């Protein structure tokens, strides 16, 4: 009950904030940036891997949001709308790069809780294989994996962000899992051979 009331209050707050933002209130925009900047940066960083690129994409995304504030209809959450914008900005930046440059910065994956160097190397290597396999998925499947698997968004949220049906999101996720299973197992067999 308390949680429901809190949710309602939050929704009302966000609606009021969104309304001020649409009316061109710079303070409201500033509040929105402060509320969502970490989430926006995280998505950009996950896709682009490097801080400088993620910084650029996150700032561009907020600028685009400000310039397009009249088009924010309010039927989606601000977070959903901003996620859609930063995804598009990051994808544009990615497409202007070579695929090799889009490969992940694996040093960031080293799990410091693992004390055995061999374990750490294996871990980093496995995650590197997985990351590369994800990077070779079709675009839509990559987006679904990023939002569903790594960001932990609900099917509904992913559907809203990508402007798909929930059924289509589930189908893309299933197809991505199937592709990853085959690619990762195929790679392992080749290594053994």
């Amino acid at each position, binding site marked *: 009950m308390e949680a429901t009331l809190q949710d309602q209050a939050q929704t009302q707050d966000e609606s009021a904030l969104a309304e001020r933002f649409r009316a061109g209130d710079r303070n409201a925009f500033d509040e929105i940036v*402060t509320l969502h900047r970490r989430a926006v940066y995280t998505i950009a960083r996950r896709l682009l891997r490097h801080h400088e690129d993620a910084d650029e994409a996150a700032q561009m995304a907020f600028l685009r949001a400000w310039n397009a504030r009249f088009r924010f209809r309010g039927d989606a959450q601000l977070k959903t709308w901003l996620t859609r914008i930063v995804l598009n900005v990051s994808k544009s930046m990615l497409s202007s790069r070579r695929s090799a440059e889009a490969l992940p910065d694996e040093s960031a994956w080293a799990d410091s809780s693992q004390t055995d160097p061999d374990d750490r190397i294996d871990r980093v290597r496995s995650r590197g294989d*997985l990351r590369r396999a994800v990077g070779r998925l079709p675009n839509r499947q990559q987006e679904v994996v990023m939002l569903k698997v790594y960001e*932990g968004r609900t099917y509904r949220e992913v559907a809203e962000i990508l402007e798909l049906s929930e059924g289509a999101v589930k189908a893309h996720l*299933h197809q991505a*899992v199937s592709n990853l299973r085959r690619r990762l*197992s195929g790679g392992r067999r080749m290594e053994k051979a």
Partner: protein
Amino acid sequence: MMDCASFENALTEMFGDPVDPTLQRETLADLRDHAATCAECEGAAELVELAALPPTERDPVEMPPESYWEGFNASIANRGALRAEGQSRGVLRRYAPAAAVVVALSGGWLLRGWVDPLVHEAQPQPVETASQPDTGSWSSLDEVIRQATAEELAAALRGLPGEWAGLEASGWATGENGLGGEWLPDALELNENDRIELMDWLDQLDQSERRPSS
């Protein structure tokens, strides 16, 4: 015993919306068993372990230090201001003549009706030429608009269709930017809404100019 198809289905479920923790543990055990014994799926063991983690731990993103966030909002604001300035100056430089003509035509046309009586009384000469803008006497039309007060011009702008209707709210139409001598406003002096409307309108003008005539 799980087969490869049900392995994929169960793994997809694990990445899906949260399920009952007990069921999740049982499913995980089945998935691990299958990955350990199936040659077709052994490479997916890493995927199973990924599914066992909460989303926030699956691919943690290294966040920049707090000092970065302290300057983040200001950085956006600065970029926004610079960009608006650059765009405004660039676009206005390209389209200033076209926009001036449109303002002159529209303003002159609208002003004509109600400026006439005033001008007839005090200054009959300019009215005569202003009432015939299609003769090409731009200087006379210019003169009529120059003589209009800021309020009169604001009222005329209010009567314009579409995007121009919003311009009366800005400093442009209220004479705060020395309208008497300047036909075209400095976009930097317009408020944000009016500037966007002006830019959109100029974009439309640009597109219509580029569109090949049929």
